[in-house]
């Protein structure tokens, strides 16, 4: 099978100018590889920080909001009472938690929901004490939602089961109080309850803030700390099918639930904003580099066409039309694009591989970067589109060459 004549001409141009072909392709290679690498890096970071978020946060949290007293109170008899606004909520209790949990679980977009009892805790050993937050929860359900079992550095979550005197503490607490599994710890609540609990497990999330404050006990234990009965629940955590859609879900939930509904994006606003800023910057920089590469290609192709203007005039004189000329030069651009992009993807993947092998210490481990199919696809597409664009404008000019003007020179 013989090549079509336009492709034949394009290929001859390419093989007779190997050096130029290489330089052009290399420009694309650099642009594409940097684009792929930087975006993979950015995406890796995002995934990492997101994983981190979901390690400690449910997609949706439901709790009772603090109510403020009205500063103006009209008694109806013409006398207006003015008072300082203050929190009037006497209890953080969610009423009828079983039904609430059941209703939430019935929503089609909810995959999992658990109820929690939160209390402010003070951990002590001797004279040392640490302020923190205790959470009373069915630990197995909780671990199911947050994979807490993977974070355990000592003991196990199973040991907390039905053990009203057991507690799982963060590694920061354990370190500060020099405690290990099997030892006792004194934990008190603001409600004035003191208990001596036995440490059955220690976890480490990597977040110092978490590890130095958080502990888990059984629901009943937490209720006792709050001096409350068995139906007392402060918070419900729910996971959804798609966390990126959480805003829509909370709107729907707000319609059926009389409590405050918040999603993970509100709770982690800072992290998410940081993340978005970084991603935007990375995208902008990598795109700028890619576009610079595009201008490089445009420049080289423009020069080639200026040098070949006599040839173009002959082709047109012997019966090749404008579209043929565009075909010839676009084929060349496409060829540069294919070679350059393929190499660029290869180099990009190598860079990612090197980065991935770099260890940056706990809790991150190796660099959070990986080859993502959609980014590879996007880079390939951008590389090709860019070369075609960079090739199209010079090719257009070539097609408009007036052979008579050339022959007269």
């Amino acid at each position, binding site marked *: 099978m013989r090549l079509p004549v336009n492709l034949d001409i394009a290929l001859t*141009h390419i093989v007779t100018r190997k050096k130029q072909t290489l330089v052009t392709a290399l420009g694309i290679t650099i642009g594409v590889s940097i684009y792929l690498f930087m975006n993979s890096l950015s995406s890796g970071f995002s995934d990492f920080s997101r994983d981190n978020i979901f390690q400690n946060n449910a997609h949706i949290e439901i709790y009772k909001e603090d109510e403020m007293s009205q500063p103006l109170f009209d008694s109806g008899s013409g006398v207006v009472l003015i008072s300082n606004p203050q929190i009037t909520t006497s209890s953080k209790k969610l009423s009828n938690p079983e039904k609430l949990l059941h209703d939430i679980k019935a929503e089609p977009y909810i995959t999992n929901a658990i109820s929690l009892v939160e209390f402010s805790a003070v951990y002590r050993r001797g004279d040392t004490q640490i302020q923190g937050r205790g959470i009373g929860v069915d630990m197995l359900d909780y671990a199911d939602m947050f994979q807490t079992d993977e974070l355990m550095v000592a003991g196990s979550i199973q040991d907390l089961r039905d053990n009203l005197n057991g507690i799982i503490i963060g590694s920061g607490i354990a370190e500060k109080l020099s405690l290990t599994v099997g030892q006792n710890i004194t934990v008190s609540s603001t409600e004035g309850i003191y208990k001596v609990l036995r440490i059955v497990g220690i976890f480490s999330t990597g977040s110092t803030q978490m590890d130095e404050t958080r502990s888990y006990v059984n629901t009943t234990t937490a209720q006792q700390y709050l001096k409350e009965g068995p139906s007392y629940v402060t918070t419900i955590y729910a996971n959804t099918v798609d966390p990126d859609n959480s805003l829509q879900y909370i709107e729907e939930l707000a319609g059926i639930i009389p409590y405050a509904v918040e999603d993970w994006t509100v709770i982690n606003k800072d992290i998410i904003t940081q993340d978005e800023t970084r991603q935007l910057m990375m995208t902008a920089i990598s795109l700028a580099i890619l576009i610079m590469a595009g201008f490089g290609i445009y420049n080289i192709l423009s020069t080639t066409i200026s040098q070949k203007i006599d*040839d173009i005039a*002959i*082709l*047109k*004189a012997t*019966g*090749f*039309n404008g579209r043929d000329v565009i075909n010839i030069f676009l084929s060349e651009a496409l060829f540069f694009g294919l070679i350059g992009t393929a190499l660029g993807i290869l180099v990009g993947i190598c860079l990612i591989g090197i980065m991935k092998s770099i260890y940056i210490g706990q809790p991150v481990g190796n660099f959070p970067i990986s080859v993502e199919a959609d980014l590879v696809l996007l880079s390939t597409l951008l590389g090709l589109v860019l070369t075609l664009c960079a090739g199209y404008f010079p090719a257009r000019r070539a097609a408009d060459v007036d052979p*008579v003007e050339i022959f007269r020179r």
Partner: protein
Amino acid sequence: MNDIVLQTQNLNKFFHEPVEFHVLKDINVSVHKGEFVSMIGKSGSGKSTLLYCLSTMDNDYSGEVHILNENVTGRKDKAMAAIRNKNIGFVFQFHYLLPEFTCLKNVMLPALKLGKHTYEEIEDRAYKKLEILGLKDQALKQSIKLSGGQQQRVSIARALINEPEIILCDEPTGNLDTKNTDMVFDVFRQLVDETNKTILVVTHDTDFAAASDRTIEMADGRIVSGNSGLYMEARA
């Protein structure tokens, strides 16, 4: 055989830059099938300009150009290119070969564009054309490695590859020695006599012109002698 294959009607052309210049004035010229016509005239009289109009490469004129009894004036770029490809062979004063290609490939390209024959057939034909012009042994050489005269002959072979009815030449022997000039003349003569092709050659070579069937003379953008009307009278 008196069919007209090339004709102009009231062809006028102006250049606007750098100053308004009436380069072709009321040109009415007819060339018949099987004629070997030469065109002479002082430098700057408008010979090349007329030839470009006749070749469909220049469309910026008023009046009409007819090729093979078809008015081609105002056709689209693509249609004009197809006409040139199929019906017109053009030979330039300065050879103009594509430097990256072999002589053979240079000759083949217009035929590959036409796409009427297979690659092998075209290759075969190209060899034959080169042979006619005494260049068979140079066929596979890179075109820039040939001498000027050889390159000019390759470009003539290229003009003949699609067996066009009309061959237009702008000073094809301007850079050739007498031996090569005679050879080109013989090839043209043969084409006209044996295959009834039509040839219009712009030349400054008076011997070459004298040996053609008819000589058109241009001066100041007008045809001053050798017009087809006179020719028709002479034949009658």
